[in-house]
């Protein structure tokens, strides 16, 4: 605890009074103390990163600041004066705007309509909306952010990165002095993140105070001026970014130091399990050929939108490729559905565990047994004891942190939820394991555990195809890495050849290669 959060310190430039202060804030939910005496302050023109594991209380703090939740104790000050955020509209009037992880956009409305939602530009004082003013002002806002998005375009037609920018424009239209960004880069590729960083920096220089929440430590270190750590609903401390290293930050977040983040992978690469030849799906990817061996972790990387998820979905029968052939242990197969894929021995850990991986209200054990209910039949009926046994076995095997296997998965942390999905896949006896962003939205402690599980599985002879946007993951875990660029494989690198530069230059669009170099060295 290096300092009290509400003390005023120099920012390297001059002493500034904080625009927003949070003092002794507590928030209770039935049975849990989500926030416990939390301190936080924010100065104009700074980017303040808020980090912590899942469930540390970041989201709750944001909801208290934006008036979604009422605190049970403590107070919020703006410009040194206490304010009460009775509802989100009041928070907005005080100049606090939030951009959420899961965007709250209206995909069927235009960008301009989204920007001025609940803040419509009317003709004088009349009841009618002035579309001309709406579009003109939307255009001004977007151009001021250096974006070329047309205000008339449908929100749903934009990429996630562009939607993000439209949301920022919306916050600006409300003259926000405090901008809260919750995991803004989670769904963005490296290049898109870089563009977002530039916009955020420009806003900071104009005097906007920004709270940044991100699981990517990279975001914190490239963007933030100060960083605050929350753990189990408590303030752990606030530091200047220059004062801390990634390791110390991580140990503050998890409350202990993580000795070995990436486990040593020692398994031998064995026989060929899967071979793909010339797989194509018009409009998504083309001419994909590669092979996967037992005991191997094969990385599939590239920018978001390069077609990686589409390729693995085709392998697992979620979609059907137009041409190309898939071979399993040398035999040609056709896969029409996830059911077929599982029967043939290919299982998929989907990208979005909450929507595609889990039945959230169901218990851990019922989630795990869903894949192979046939293993639990006694006289044609499901046997509860048999399901319990398997549930307990996997909870122990993967050290899923839960009181009992009967606990609903929605009450688990992101990392433990991911372990439940992995447990489910393991019941399938499928030797080919495809993992799409296995550590997305997972806290640091669980990340290390998931890496360990992957390495152990490879040692048992599983072939793992890992789709990942996180370069360190690919560099440290994979035996080989495939890089995709606009629907095609642009490079296949062996472990000995791995360098961040090589991976990145293969991933970036050809015309933007120069820009990528700047990103890398700048």
């Amino acid at each position: 605890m290096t300092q009290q959060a509400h003390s005023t310190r120099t920012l390297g430039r001059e002493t500034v009074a904080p625009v927003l202060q949070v003092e002794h804030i507590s928030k209770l939910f039935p049975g849990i103390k989500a926030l416990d005496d939390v301190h936080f302050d924010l100065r104009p023109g700074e980017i303040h990163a808020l980090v912590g594991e899942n469930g540390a209380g970041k989201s709750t703090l944001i909801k208290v600041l934006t008036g979604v939740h009422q605190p049970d104790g403590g107070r919020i000050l703006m410009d040194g004066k206490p304010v009460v955020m009775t509802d989100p509209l009041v928070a907005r009037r005080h100049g606090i705007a939030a951009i959420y992880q899961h965007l709250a956009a209206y995909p069927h409305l235009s960008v301009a309509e989204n920007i001025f939602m609940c803040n419509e530009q009317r003709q004088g004082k009349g009841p009618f909306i002035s579309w001309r003013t709406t579009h003109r002002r939307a255009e001004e806002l977007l151009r001021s952010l250096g974006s070329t998005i047309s205000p008339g375009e449908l929100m749903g037609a934009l990429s996630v990165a562009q939607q993000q920018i439209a949301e920022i424009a919306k916050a600006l239209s409300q003259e926000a002095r405090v901008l809260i960004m919750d995991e803004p880069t989670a769904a963005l590729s490296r290049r898109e993140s870089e563009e977002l960083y530039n916009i955020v920096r420009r806003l900071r220089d104009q005097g906007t105070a920004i709270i940044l929440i991100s699981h990517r430590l990279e975001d914190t270190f490239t963007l933030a001026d100060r960083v605050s750590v929350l753990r189990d609903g408590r303030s752990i401390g606030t530091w200047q970014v220059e004062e801390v290293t990634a390791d110390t930050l991580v140990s503050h977040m998890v409350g202990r130091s993580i000795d070995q983040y990436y486990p040593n992978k020692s398994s031998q690469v064995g026989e060929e399990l899967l071979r793909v030849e010339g797989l194509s799906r018009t409009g998504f990817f083309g001419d994909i050929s590669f092979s996967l061996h037992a005991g191997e972790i094969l990385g599939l990387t590239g920018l978001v939108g390069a077609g990686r998820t589409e390729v693995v979905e085709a392998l697992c029968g979620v979609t059907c490729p137009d041409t190309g052939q898939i071979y399993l242990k040398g035999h040609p197969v056709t896969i029409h559905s996830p059911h077929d894929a599982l029967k043939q021995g290919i299982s998929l850990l989907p990208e979005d565990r909450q929507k595609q991986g889990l039945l959230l209200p169901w218990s851990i054990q019922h989630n795990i047994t869903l894949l192979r209910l046939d293993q639990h039949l006694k006289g044609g009926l499901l046997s509860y004891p048999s399901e319990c046994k398997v549930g307990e076995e996997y909870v122990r095997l993967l050290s899923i942190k839960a009181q009992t296997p009967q606990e609903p998965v929605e009450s688990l942390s992101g990392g433990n939820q991911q372990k439940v999905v992995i447990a489910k896949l393991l019941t399938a006896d499928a030797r080919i394991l495809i993992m799409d962003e296995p550590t997305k939205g997972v806290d640091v402690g669980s990340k290390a555990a998931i890496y360990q599980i992957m390495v152990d599985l490879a040692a048992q002879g599983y072939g793992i195809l890992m789709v990942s946007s996180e370069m360190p993951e690919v560099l440290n875990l994979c035996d080989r890495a495939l890089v995709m660029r606009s629907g095609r494989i642009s490079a296949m690198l062996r472990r000995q050849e791995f360098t961040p530069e090589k991976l990145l230059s293969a991933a970036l669009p050809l015309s933007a290669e120069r820009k990528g170099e700047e990103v890398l060295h700048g």
Partner: protein
Amino acid sequence: MTGAQKPTGRIPGFLRRREWLLAVLIVIVYFVFNSQLPESYTVVNLLNQSRVYMVDVGFMAVGMLMVLILGDIDISVASIAALASTVMAVTYNAGQGLPFLVSVGLMLLVGLVCGLINGLLVTRFHELFPMIITLATQTLYRGIAYIILKDQSAGSFPSWFSKDLGYGSVRILGVEVPLMLICILAVFPLYYLWIHRTAPGRRMFAAGTNITASRYSGVRTDRLKMTAFVFNGVMAAVAGIFLCSRTGSVKYTIAAGFEMQAIAVAILGGASTSGGRGSVVGLLLALVLMTALKNGLMLLYNDAFILNLSIGLMLILIVLVPNLWNMYRSMRTLRRQRLAISKS
């Protein structure tokens, strides 16, 4: 969460499950009406009236429950029953046409085909809501029944059908139990095993809870939906059989409005229109509760309008009570936590 499917631990003791709540309500309803009408409102009378209130709606609700568990809805069941009954009555033609049992077989076939059409439309056109699809087939099926029968009514069924099945009973332990009540009660144990204890049953709950995650887990969701809609169609036709035997004749308006009653009973029994929830025991208890309530209200007021009103009230009540309980409990926990803080 009303706590019908998973014990959340928030609703205490015996009210934790919808089934127990229903059982308590049945006892209350029985004793309230019994004290008002000690002579006419008795177990014997309830058993007698179960023919009217429990059997045909009950069969429709059995089929509907499966569709609701999958997160879909089918509002064409009453029309299926009407079309199937029409086809039966017309082909039998008061003894002039096909043999009676062949006509009944044809009736079941009509139910199956109607369900198949619903299922095909729902699984082939994912972008259309089952509500809209079955709204279309609802008018379509009843329209066909009208084309066949016009304003006529058809009937003159064999006497064993309209007398023995319709009004016959079996003496069990000194009580006359209607034959058709025994028929529907016999369905429940098998249905329970199917829904709650087999792998396909579990997968139906899975598909209703999260269809995408289920598909990724190898559950063949379209196949399950087809099964549910076809089963629902056949059950509607079965409901039609019992309705015909009770009324003795068929008009194209037969069973009008029954689909809403079937949905209401299933929801009263713990199902949800958003899918993934439902209980066979709850369904049976909800049927008994409706019978007890409707019978009492009819005896007291002798006006059919009171019936619809009572169903509405009962639905609001039973869906609301567990939620109010939850709200009260979490408020109490919060107050206790706040107290503990202010003391420390």
